[in-house]
């Protein structure tokens, strides 16, 4: 793979990479998912999954620190050649599926809020092109682009601060009165919220490319994400109230539509201008992860050819998820498998096996 680009990133870039991959698209529908599951106290679910995400980060960084290799190498070391290959194939497929779901959500946002009449394949081409370009340049370039998320975050906080007077905080009370209709409803909500936190498992792939200490920055990114997502969910409940919030397709964009300023009037256009790169970053991160795994699994194939194949596969897959409800169901299902499977169960299992076999440092 002579055409492989540079992937080394600094710990600071890792923070931006993880935050943008989690926040960019995950935040859009998150408050609705949380409220659908637990009612007005749904932000507890977000906080809870934020803590689970931090636990996942702890497991992955322990595993990464033990082997100083990506999940591909770790799987081969612990599970052997055949078992490792099968596990890696599964991991690859899950990351591929995640990038597909991210692209599907990205497309739905574009179709509802911006481009209704433009054919989906044209939109897909336009959305995939910058991602394709960034991945050809490597993780380093992707991570540099991801620093844009801080600007998007600033706009998000500014929006919340300037709309605080419109929020009715009593909508958040009683604080601990949950409304889980049944366990299945709660599980469904957790699946949706998992999509908000999807991204910490990218550490499984990028860990060995971090130059220096990765544990601290990863926790910092996870903490920031959990804090932002929890506070935004609470804010969305206070802004819309539980019944109207559950009617919002993407509550973030629903609040943005009401954002006003003197002279310029509607601020939603400006907000989205800064948030679009963050949305793109979420998709880019997962496609990059799938590409990095494929590059490790098939080292003899050309890096760009592999990327072309993977991008083509993901783009074609996203074209089939045109219907919003179908796309959302698929997104939630894959997000849950990724979040709990890749981000929690797999590293935990590998850590246990590594300890039992006495492998790694």
């Amino acid at each position, binding site marked *: 793979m002579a055409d492989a680009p540079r992937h080394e990133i600094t710990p600071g870039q890792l923070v931006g990479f993880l935050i943008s991959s989690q926040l960019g698209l995950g935040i859009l529908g998150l408050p609705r998912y949380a409220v659908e599951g637990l009612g007005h106290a749904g932000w507890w679910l977000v906080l809870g999954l934020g803590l689970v995400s931090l636990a996942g980060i702890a497991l992955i960084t322990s595993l990464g620190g033990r082997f100083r290799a990506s999940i591909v190498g770790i799987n081969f070391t612990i599970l052997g050649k055949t078992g490792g290959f099968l596990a890696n194939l599964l991991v690859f497929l899950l990351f591929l599926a995640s990038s597909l779901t991210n692209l599907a959500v990205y497309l739905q946002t574009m179709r509802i809020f911006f481009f209704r009449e433009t054919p989906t394949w044209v939109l897909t081409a336009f959305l995939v092109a910058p991602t394709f370009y960034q991945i050809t340049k490597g993780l380093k370039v992707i991570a540099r682009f991801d620093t844009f998320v801080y600007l998007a975050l600033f706009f998000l906080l500014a929006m919340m601060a300037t709309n605080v007077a419109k929020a009715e905080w009593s909508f958040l009370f009683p604080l601990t009165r949950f409304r889980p209709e049944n366990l299945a409803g709660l599980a469904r909500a957790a699946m949706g919220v998992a999509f908000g936190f999807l991204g910490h498992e990218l550490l499984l792939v990028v860990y060995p490319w971090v130059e220096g200490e990765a544990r601290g920055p990863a926790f910092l990114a996870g903490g920031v994400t959990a804090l932002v997502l929890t506070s935004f969910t609470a804010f969305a409940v206070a802004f819309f109230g539980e019944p*109207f919030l559950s009617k919002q397709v993407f509550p973030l964009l629903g609040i943005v539509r*009401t954002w006003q300023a003197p002279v310029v009037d509607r601020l939603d256009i400006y907000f989205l201008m800064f948030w679009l790169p963050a949305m793109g970053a979420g998709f880019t991160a997962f496609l990059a992860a799938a590409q990095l795994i494929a590059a490790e699994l098939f080292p003899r194939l050309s890096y760009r050819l592999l990327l072309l194949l993977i991008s083509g596969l993901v783009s074609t897959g996203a074209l089939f998820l045109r219907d919003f409800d179908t796309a959302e169901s698929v997104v939630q299902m894959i997000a849950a498998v990724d979040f709990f499977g890749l981000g929690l169960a797999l590293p935990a299992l590998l850590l246990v096996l590594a300890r039992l076999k006495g492998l790694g440092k």
Partner: protein
Amino acid sequence: MRTRFFRLLFLLCFSLFVTGCWDQRVIERMEFIATAGVDARPGGRILLGVITPAVEQGGKPKPHLYLTEVDCLRQGRERLRLQSSGELEAGKMEQIFFGEEMARRGIVDYLDILARDAFNPVQAHLAVVKGTAEGFLRQAIRWQHVPFCSLYLDHLLDYGTATGNIPRTGITRFYVAYYAPGLDPIAPLLRATPSRALLCGTALFRDDRLVGELDVDATFLLLALGGKARSHTQTFLLPKDLRKEKKALAVRFVKTGRKMEIRLPSGRPKIFFRLSFTGMLMEFRAGRPLQPEELRRLEGFIACALEKEAKKLWATLRALNVDPLGIGNLIRAYYHEFWERHDWRRVFPQVEAEFRVKVDLVNYGAIR
């Protein structure tokens, strides 16, 4: 060098395609709805009226009124598109007005398109007009002394909100109040005169139906009870013992404080309001320099008058069974078991409230 040239060429060619694709909107070929009005018509139909600015080169925009009778708002826009010179869009709509009868019938079904279509501005003012929206719009396009009626109405509604004469209600806020349990929506109320629009106060809704109204002073008090009042100027008729040549005095309130306590004595909610107003004496003729003790007497008189008005306002809300203050929402939040056991619509008319008002006149302007 050659690679760079091709990259540059690619970017230039690429930029030719970045024109909005199939969703391209050319402003010159569009006509923007600035104001919309909706009236009830027999058989569940509605009359939709919209004002668009017809711009002439070098001149001020002239309002152009379209009217059509339809079953739903989107059908109305599509009908109007058959008459308009450009593509009619509501993305820059500043206000939507509902006629009285329409508002009594219920308006939430007709707001749907405004919230659902992401291109529509949900922060547009939502208001009720006395009489019909059609009549209001017909008068509005004839106003000669305003720059452009929609712009004038936007400024009027903004100013009215800032001076506490009307509440600020956009489409989203109306929806939030409509859907929230234990909270009823309110909207500004106005009417057209031959030369201008006149702010009348607040339209009170039960769910999404207009059931009553408040004048501008009662609106300020309502906002004060809700903890949302800002500044307001109010006139009070003086009692005989305080009256000199003038029958009234005027006060400008600059700061309003509210403390509210909900108690459940003997299983029925009772609300305790503590209101404090800080103001300036704007107009009062004593015939001699005002003494501090006289000022205190005036404060007591104004406080007493406001307390009476607050009681009257509370009686109105109870009689109409509307809860724009969201007392029910607070009961739901802090006394949840009571909320779950009772139907708030049945409870609210029996809820009693106690008011204590304190007025602090901090100065009397440039003369004593």
